[in-house]
């Protein structure tokens, strides 16, 4: 029974310095920061969304530091120092995250390059293919015309 009371008190402490103590702009900052910080246990949620005990503790840390007058950047740095840039849903641009930031643009550029190459190939073949066809076509047509003329001569003789 005693441990239960202690546990409840501990939970009370952890959630005690929460949104209740904050008002107006500070409360808005609290909600904004919570949404930008990633829960380290349930990794695809922010600490605002998560009910994990650690997320509750981290919300209490955010609330406590806002109440203590720390800036958003200071609070984020405090958590990055302890948990790494992983806690940020909006990671800063640096050597470790360059692939993350540049990756989509590199892929887009590669895709455009492939499209460009394919389109140029098509155009090249479109330029040359009809020229060959035209030559052959006229030859065929000439041959056909001569044969047709010969046939006409034959038939006219038979029917006369």
């Amino acid at each position, binding site marked *: 029974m005693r441990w239960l009371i202690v546990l409840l008190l501990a939970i009370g402490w952890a959630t005690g310095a929460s949104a209740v103590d904050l008002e107006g702009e500070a409360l808005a900052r609290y909600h904004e920061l919570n949404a930008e910080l990633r829960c*380290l246990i349930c990794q695809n949620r922010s600490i605002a969304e998560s009910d994990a005990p650690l997320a509750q503790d*981290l919300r209490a840390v955010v609330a406590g530091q806002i109440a203590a007058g720390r800036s958003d950047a200071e609070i984020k740095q405090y958590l990055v120092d302890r948990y790494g840039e992983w806690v940020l849903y909006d990671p800063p641009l640096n050597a470790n995250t360059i692939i993350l930031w540049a990756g989509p643009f590199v892929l887009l550029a590669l895709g455009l390059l492939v499209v460009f190459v394919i389109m140029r190939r098509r155009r090249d073949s479109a330029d040359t293919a009809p020229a060959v066809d035209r030559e052959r076509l006229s030859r065929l047509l000439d041959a056909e015309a001569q044969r047709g003329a010969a046939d006409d001569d034959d038939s006219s003789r038979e029917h006369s």
Partner: protein
Amino acid sequence: MRWRLVIPVVVVLMLIVLLGYGLTRRPDVLPSALIDKPAPQFDLPTLASDRERIRTADLKGKVTLVNVWASWCVACRAEHALITEISRRTGVPVVGLNYKDTKEGALRWLGRYGNPFAVVAFDRSGEVGIDWGVAAVPETFVVDRQGTIRYKVVGAITRDEMNDTLVPTLERLKASGS
């Protein structure tokens, strides 16, 4: 025209490497921000007595293993025997950080399974755990003589991990004099 055959093969090989990398990583184990950084400051009562305190300064001067644990943590029970074995094999003292636990629960746990710790810091609120970047218990830190964190194990220690990394790391740090 041969390159037309080469491209799909290269693309498939790149995919295999990429997927293989993705499959062999453990996404739940995060890289620690504290490696090669000084151990975070703390000043906590010990589990044994409220009057005794243990501080960061107490970690200096010798290689230590800091094990974050709780009596409610099932994985801590799993690594308990290995913590004992590491301490016995290397002679490195293990400092326990009892995390978000009750005094009664923690003491009962140590009574039942044995106490591998030289001293246990009692962090009821989990504040010190946050300073140490603890996401979930158990976590184990190797701290060198200068009080710098040199290695960290997230989750329960396995026998392979103990033999392949933890014990060699502790022996190396003990021998190097740093």
